[in-house]
């Protein structure tokens, strides 16, 4: 028992020592908008803490549906890790994330995301893959107990191309910046690659540790592919706080 206590104490000391050398980060955002599934509007709040140490960032996050939830108030949550790598004096970030969305009493959406992102001058870009799995909930399995034996408990979409391309007025690192872009992902949303969204983003560094941003996103159904029409829009405002090292 004494050995266990000593081990536990050593672990805690190591952990605190590690935290002292790392950097905490907290991003919180409000998203509000309207689309064909929620014509009366929606309001979501996301809180995403992260911890950065050496070249790693480990994070988590949850999105709460404050107005018009599809199923539960916890709209989605995530766990993620990011590794900064330098290739030929240029920084890239390799990102892996797991996203969970309990969008129905009967169904869950799981996303496994792997992306590669970089910034160069006025340009910011991200490409990667998202593997999506829809699976039956426990309640649905009670309704269709035979689904387990027939292998119909889940539907997998292994390959979805994820992208984010944007161009900004100023180079990275300026006190404020404004830009436009196209992407099929934002926060907790991962569309199929053929459903892009257009966006504008404004960001302002309020202090060394605090940054504010505001985004406006337009969703066109069938854009550049089918007979396109308006699908929805949302605005997102957020704050990113980073502790001093």
């Amino acid at each position, binding site marked *: 028992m004494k050995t266990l206590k000593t081990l536990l104490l050593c672990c805690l000391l190591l952990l605190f020592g590690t935290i002292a050398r790392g950097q905490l980060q907290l991003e919180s955002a409000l998203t509000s908008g309207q689309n064909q599934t929620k014509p009366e509007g929606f309001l979501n709040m996301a809180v995403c803490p992260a911890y950065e140490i050496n070249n790693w960032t480990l994070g988590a996050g949850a999105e709460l549906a404050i107005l018009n939830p599809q199923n539960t108030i916890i709209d989605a949550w995530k766990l993620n890790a990011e590794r900064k790598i330098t290739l030929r004096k240029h920084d890239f970030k390799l990102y892996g994330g797991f996203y969970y969305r309990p969008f129905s009493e009967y*169904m869950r959406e799981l996303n496994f995301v792997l992306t590669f992102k970089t910034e160069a001058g006025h340009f910011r870009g991200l490409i990667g893959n998202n593997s999506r799995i829809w699976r039956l909930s426990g309640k649905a399995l009670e309704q269709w107990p035979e*689904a387990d034996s027939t292998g119909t408990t889940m539907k997998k*979409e292994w*390959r979805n191309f994820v992208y984010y391309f944007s161009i900004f007025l100023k180079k990275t690192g300026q006190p404020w910046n404004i830009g436009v872009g196209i992407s099929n992902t934002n926060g907790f949303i991962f569309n199929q690659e*053929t459903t892009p969204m257009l966006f504008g983003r404004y960001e302002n560094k309020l202090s060394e540790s605090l940054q504010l941003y505001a985004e406006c996103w337009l969703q066109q159904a069938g854009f550049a592919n089918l*007979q396109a029409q308006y699908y929805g829009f949302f605005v997102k405002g957020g704050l990113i706080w980073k502790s001093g090292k």
Partner: protein
Amino acid sequence: MEKWKIILLLFSLALTSCFHDLDEAGAFHSKYNANERFEISEQWNNAHPFQIIIMPDSEYSVVYCGDTHIGTYQEFLQVINAAKQPSTAALVVAGDISRGHVESYDTLQNLMNTVDSVKWFFTPGNHDLYFGGWDEFYPRFGASSYYFVVSTPAGNDLFIILDSGSGTLGSKQLDWLAEVLESFHSSVRHITIATHLNFFKDGFGLTSGLPMEEVNVILDLCARYNIDYVIGGHDHGRNKSVLGNTNFIIMDQCHDEESNSSYLEVLYKENGCSHVFHNIIEQ
């Protein structure tokens, strides 16, 4: 610089002429959106109550095809003939029936005027809506969102036809779908939904689907109301997925200019449903 502008212009013109059936302007804006088409369809539905097809046996079939892209219609004619079997209740064509041009609609309407022994049901796909195609579709074929019922001695089956031609069902059609399912689900044996777009993707591809929030709403309805089949086209390549109780089928095309065409026959029985693809023999 001028040289490049000329090259770009010539390239654009060449591209446009290559894709005579693509409505480039429509890829950015539609004359009628899904909610407007739904409202017009509801006017039609109010004036034309839903059809009830009475079948003498509790087992029967419904024939489905899509992506006929008329033009020519040799393969589609084979499907129409297959649907003339006495045990077949109806023929459902799940979009991209025409190419959106007036002459394409004329050919299709002339063909359907000769078909009198088959109950057929259409819904538009994106190609049917190109070049302002809704103005041609609606006066000739009526509503794009509606339902019909097949009545058998053992019970009734519900068939819901949805309009997904512009990449979204739209809020009004989604509400209507939920209402129809709520009012019918406890009194019918089987429920089938047919529409042009499919919900799942099999790998990277250029064909468009519905936005994810909308897919999730429909998946919830499928589970909640125990829907048997969701049948679509659009991808020109067959695929089948099962999630819970629902079979999600993507059909092959049924287009004279492409090989490997087929149509789908779903057999509705007292204790379940099954389906089979029939390959179309090129003539």
